[in-house]
């Protein structure tokens, strides 16, 4: 059997490649012209081309709070929760499928899985040391996988574009409606003589773009840092934050007759420093939350805006950017958590001197 002689480029023969390039360019040009910038330019030069409705992309209306789609046992289910559950299910299913039959000599999928998690494990080892890496690895890897998959899944078409419409009679609506009919979340429609409020929501939205998700992970991260700090250093960890010892010692000396002004002063400063440390620990939660939330939300808005301004082909590079940003954010979130945990289990005195 002889291998047929292959000619061409990128796996296609030249004519096919040329056709593909032409189609691609045409899509790019038409997409650009149908977008907001293109329309503006066309009108400026007096060319009036109307694109069909299905080609024109409406102005995006980003809004920060995730809409509640329905309630289950009093728990509000938002579209971001659905997205995060999809992430969870996907992660569990992939892990189960891969680890169900693990082999010493791994197959392709297992190699991928192992090398990725092994990379995270090596990261843990390089920062926390061999002994602690095993304890920290599960939480770090979970944060990484969860954030990463949340970010990447939200790039899949359907996230933020499949809509869910809900009708609510105006009469039963208790809250006052904001003025301005077609702003954001609702329109008033009349059906059978009754006014309904039409809520239109995305069915699924990237979980990281809801502030609750980053906040939840940040709280987990905080709790984990506190847990490891307490179990490793015990009271020593708390002493970093509630450092009353030196002050009380100095006061005790004062009652015994030895007035130690410098001791009392530095004791007070120690308490203050402890307070600052405590504050910074809580501020860490906020910075964790808003770093991820801000990046992800900005990314999504960026994608919406590019899809509106220069739709189709020219918006594609931004997806690459978002893939990179998703990875970087996952890396930062888990890496910082790892660093904080490592700092929490390292004795403070040994670190200072």
């Amino acid at each position, binding site marked *: 059997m002889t291998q047929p002689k292959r000619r061409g480029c990128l796996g296609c023969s030249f004519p096919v490649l040329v056709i593909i390039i032409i189609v691609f360019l045409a899509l790019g040009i038409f997409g650009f012209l149908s977008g907001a910038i293109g329309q503006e330019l066309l009108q400026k030069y007096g060319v009036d081309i109307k694109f069909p409705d299905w080609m024109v992309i409406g102005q995006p209306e980003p809004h*920060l709070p995730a809409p509640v789609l329905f309630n289950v046992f009093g728990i509000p289910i938002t579209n971001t929760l659905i997205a995060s559950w999809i992430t969870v299910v996907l992660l569990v299913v992939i892990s189960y499928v891969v680890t169900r039959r693990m082999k010493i000599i791994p197959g392709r999928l297992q190699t991928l899985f192992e090398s990725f998690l092994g990379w995270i494990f090596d990261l843990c080892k390089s920062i926390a040391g061999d002994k602690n890496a095993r304890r920290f690895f599960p939480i770090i890897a979970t944060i990484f996988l969860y954030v990463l998959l949340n970010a990447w899944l939200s790039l899949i078409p359907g996230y933020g574009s499949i809509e869910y419409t809900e009708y609510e009679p105006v009469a039963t609506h208790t809250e006052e409606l904001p003025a301005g009919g077609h702003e954001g979340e609702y329109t008033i429609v009349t059906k059978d003589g009754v006014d309904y409020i039409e809520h239109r929501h995305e069915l699924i939205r990237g979980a990281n773009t809801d*502030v609750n998700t980053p906040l939840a992970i940040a709280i*987990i991260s905080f709790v984990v840092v506190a847990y490891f700090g307490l179990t490793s250093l015990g009271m020593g960890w708390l002493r970093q934050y509630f450092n009353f010892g030196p002050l009380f010692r100095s006061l005790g000396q004062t009652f015994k007759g030895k007035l130690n002004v410098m001791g009392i002063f530095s004791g007070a400063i120690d308490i203050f420093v402890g307070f600052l440390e405590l504050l910074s620990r809580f501020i860490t939660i906020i910075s964790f939350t808003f770093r991820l939330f801000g990046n992800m939300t900005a990314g999504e808005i960026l994608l919406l805006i590019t899809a509106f301004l220069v739709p189709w082909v020219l918006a594609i590079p931004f997806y690459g950017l978002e893939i990179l940003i998703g990875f970087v954010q996952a890396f930062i979130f888990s890496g910082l958590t790892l660093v904080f945990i490592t700092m929490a289990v390292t004795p403070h005195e040994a670190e200072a001197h």
Partner: protein
Amino acid sequence: MGDLLTELGVNGGVLITQLVTFIILLVILRFVAYKPLMRMLDERSKRVKESMEQAESVKEQSAHAEEEVKKQLVEASREGQERIARAVKAGEEMKQKAQEEARHEAEALIERARGEIQRERDEAIGEVRREFADLTVLAAGKVIERTLDKEKHRELIDKVLEESSTEKKEQP
């Protein structure tokens, strides 16, 4: 503050649900992903270690065997040398012995030859004596037969001797 949080979308119920979701994910992944992964990594590193140890021991064994072989070779060559030396020595001894024997034999031969010669000479001398006596007797007979003067006596003896010599020449 509360307004700000609402504006941002912070929602207690959703937050708690997210926390629970994350914890569930953590627990499930711990059993589904991390434990098997760690077990596998440990197992693999154990195997690698084992096989490396095995390789090490095999190497050691082979080095040992090689040393053994070398030692045996040295031993063998030494033994061979020794054997050669012994053989050479034995050969030398044998040669010496043979020489000795040969000399003995030769001496014996010479001795015998000498004896023979002695005997032959004695015999010859004896014969000569006997012959001479005979001749003497013959000559004396001749002398007695005639009266002889001194010159005739001489002549006679010469004649006899001549006769005997011619006789001897013809005889053998």
